[in-house]
């Protein structure tokens, strides 16, 4: 089962990337996150008149990484629909959730690596001090954030079975995360309803936890944040797994899988 998962994941990744050279992939994967990171950090620096941009570097790095994961997972069925392959997937006995995870696996790994690189480069540019950071804890927070993002991306991907407007949905999700998860605006400054909304979004807790590493670590609060983020990821995964069959049925009923 694991062998099949990795085989499918690799073939999917190969199918997406084989047209590009290594240099092109590297340039695209690193330059885009880096430029975006610089943009938001410069914007924050001018808007909030702060010289210490650590919080923005951390928050936006996480956001970029997670956004890439959400887009990779969330767009699973969009490409398949566009190239006429969705029917082969639907008609095959394979579980549709496994397709989402297989297709998202390597792009997510690539996202982590490339954004990490962007993160370190951005940190050098904006002078973020890493000396007091616990690398093990930082990695743990990243993995937990990735898990929650995977669950969120999976849930969005399911919608791809019933709509061909996934680009709109994914872009909307991306901006919602940008506004509400604390990467660019402190959650504490948001209105009450928005603060509550931020709690059901992936990343809010991870960003808070990651920022804590650069300030004073409150172990109890940090553990609670990580458990909360994990729990949220599990909830997203459960909802995605439950609704995928229902959405598939609805799409088959409404003839939404293809243009008929």
């Amino acid at each position, binding site marked *: 089962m694991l062998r099949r998962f990795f085989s499918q994941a690799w073939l999917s990744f*190969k199918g997406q990337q084989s047209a590009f050279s290594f240099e092109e992939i590297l340039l695209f994967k690193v330059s885009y996150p880096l430029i975006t990171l610089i943009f938001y950090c410069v914007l924050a620096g001018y808007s909030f008149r702060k010289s210490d941009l650590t919080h923005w570097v951390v928050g936006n790095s996480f956001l970029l990484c997670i956004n890439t994961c959400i887009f990779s997972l969330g767009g699973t069925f969009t490409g398949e629909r566009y190239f006429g*392959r969705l029917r*082969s997937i639907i*008609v095959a006995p394979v579980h549709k959730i496994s397709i989402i995870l297989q297709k998202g696996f390597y792009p997510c790994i690539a996202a982590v690596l490339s954004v990490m690189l962007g993160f370190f480069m951005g940190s050098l540019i904006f002078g973020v001090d890493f000396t007091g950071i616990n690398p093990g804890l930082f990695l743990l927070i990243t993995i937990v954030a990735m898990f929650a993002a995977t669950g969120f991306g999976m849930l969005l991907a399911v919608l791809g079975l019933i709509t061909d407007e996934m680009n709109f949905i994914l872009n909307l999700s991306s901006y919602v995360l940008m506004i509400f998860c604390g990467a660019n605006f402190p959650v504490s400054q948001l209105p009450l309803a928005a603060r509550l909304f931020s709690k059901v979004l992936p990343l809010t807790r991870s960003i808070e936890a990651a920022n804590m590493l650069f300030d004073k670590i409150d172990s109890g609060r940090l553990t609670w944040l990580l458990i909360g983020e994990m729990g949220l990821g599990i909830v997203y995964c459960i909802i995605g797994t439950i609704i995928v069959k229902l959405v598939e049925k609805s799409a088959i009923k409404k003839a939404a899988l293809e243009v*008929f």
Partner: protein
Amino acid sequence: MSAVIEVRDLKREYITTKGWVKRKKEIIHAVNGITFEVQEGEIFGLLGQNGAGKTTTIKMLITLLAPTSGECKVLGFRTFGEEDNIRKRINFIFGGEMGVYRRLSARDNLKYFANLYHIDFPVASKRIEEILDLVGLSDKADLLVETYSKGMVQRLQIARGLINDPDILFMDEPTVGLDPLGARMLRDIIKKLKEKGKTVLLTTHYMYEADELCDRIAIINKGKLVALDTPNNLKHMVNGISSIEVLVGEASEQLISEIKNIRGVKSVSASVNEKGNIIYIKHKSDCDISGTLFDVLKNKKITSFTQKEITLEDVYIQLVEEN
């Protein structure tokens, strides 16, 4: 033999809405109450014009589309509601260049699709080699599909459809885009599948293909079944009708209309090829129209005049026109 496909009073409607303010619903009856059965090991043809409902029927049979009403069973299971029992044992081939990964090789494509069917790795490897050989892609199996010609992509589609060794294979215009050799290869594959006891349901616009391959043929028009029988019996349906093909220098609308007015003529159509204009005339066998026809065609530079046997195409055209 037992029925592996059972379709009874099957209907499928598509609802579209028009307008921004005053939304107007429009219902399209793509399939409008068709009934047929396909026996195990049979090659069954579904013929009809574009938009007749053939593809919609196939999509319902392969569990890709739910019926609006009626019964649609494959291998004894409902295609909507019990699809998990069907999917492992069927596959489909649709014409055209979509549906494969263009940035993977043919071999990688087949590995990918084999994984979708949970086929064991050793079995899949062996089968992939056999299928590549069968469709004549062995020597190009490791090239990216984006470098393939249209015909080669279509051969890969055929290979993809055979990857799970299906009991029933659904083919929607599978020879579209294939050169004559490729089309012959596909017909040979279909015959081999029949020898192995597999069931094939196919749609095609090529009548000679249906005539050569199918045990039985259903003709559908505007979502309704208008005929269902063996190719020979279908040809007997238009007994009493004879066919004439005339090659002339010019075929004006007025000329066609004059021929239509000849007593005993059932239908007239015309087409143009590099030699000139061909006029196809169907007339009652007991009416000798040749004398009157020659009078009408006087001074029209007749290059050839042929009396023809009734073909499946004649039957098809007549049935579709009548309905």
